[in-house]
């Protein structure tokens, strides 16, 4: 199937794994396993307007998203990191809604492409 490279850049990601598709799939699985927890945690932190903690958590999540070629997730996470850095609550909330959506789009795309099992829950948090 065709993959939208803005959601998941398979070619670039596989290149970073030096062609090791088995390892790439394994790490995508790790990301999908951990993402719901991270997204939910971030939601709680943003609701509490703990900007320093929000920056640290979203920064770690950004690294994870970069590892698995989740470009749109990466952009959404970066917008939250910027908003958290500036203490902009409304921007952070908008960014968070976008992040939840992009994590779900990424999950659906890689599952439908057969790159990950479909048992992982969507990246829905409950904070803001």
């Amino acid at each position, binding site marked *: 199937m065709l993959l939208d490279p803005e959601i998941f850049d398979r070619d670039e990601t596989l290149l970073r794994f030096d062609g090791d598709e088995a390892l790439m799939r394994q790490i995508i699985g790790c990301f999908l*396993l951990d993402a719901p927890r991270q997204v939910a945690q971030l939601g709680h932190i943003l609701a509490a307007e703990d900007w320093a903690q929000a920056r640290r958590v979203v920064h770690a999540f950004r690294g994870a998203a970069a*590892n698995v070629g989740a470009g749109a997730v990466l952009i959404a996470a970066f917008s939250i990191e910027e908003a958290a850095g500036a203490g902009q609550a409304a921007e952070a909330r908008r960014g968070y809604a976008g992040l939840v959506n992009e994590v779900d789009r990424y999950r659906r795309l890689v599952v439908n492409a057969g790159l990950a099992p479909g048992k992982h829950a969507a990246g829905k948090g409950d904070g803001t």
Partner: protein
Amino acid sequence: MKTLIVEDDFTSRKMLQGFLAPFGECDVAVDGAEAVQAFRAAHEEGRPYDLICLDLMMPRMNGHSTLAAIREFEGQRGIHGSDGARVVVTTCLKDSRNVLAAFQGQCDAYLVKPIHRRDLTATLSNLSLIAGDAAPAASAG
């Protein structure tokens, strides 16, 4: 090669483990404080780490403080320069302030995420931790 991966993010930890496992034993620490404990324990066991992959932004103790603690511990034991652990910073932070601080803190290399497996392998080779032709073969998908 004995490696300590210091990284608070699960996915990044697993990826580095995947990249480095073919070269030997890999331990993990989820923050700087845990890393310093592991580093000291490895020395006390007489089996210190050859390589430490160190994230910068972490809870409890960040990467810069961790690096300082590691180099201070080595200095107290008379371990200097290439006799110490090779520290490769692995981070999303690419601003000059962090890069400069890491090298002033005596890191050996600085890799910006997302990490490319080939860049990491080349770095290990440049640091004489592995042979130049030691890249692992990709497994079939």
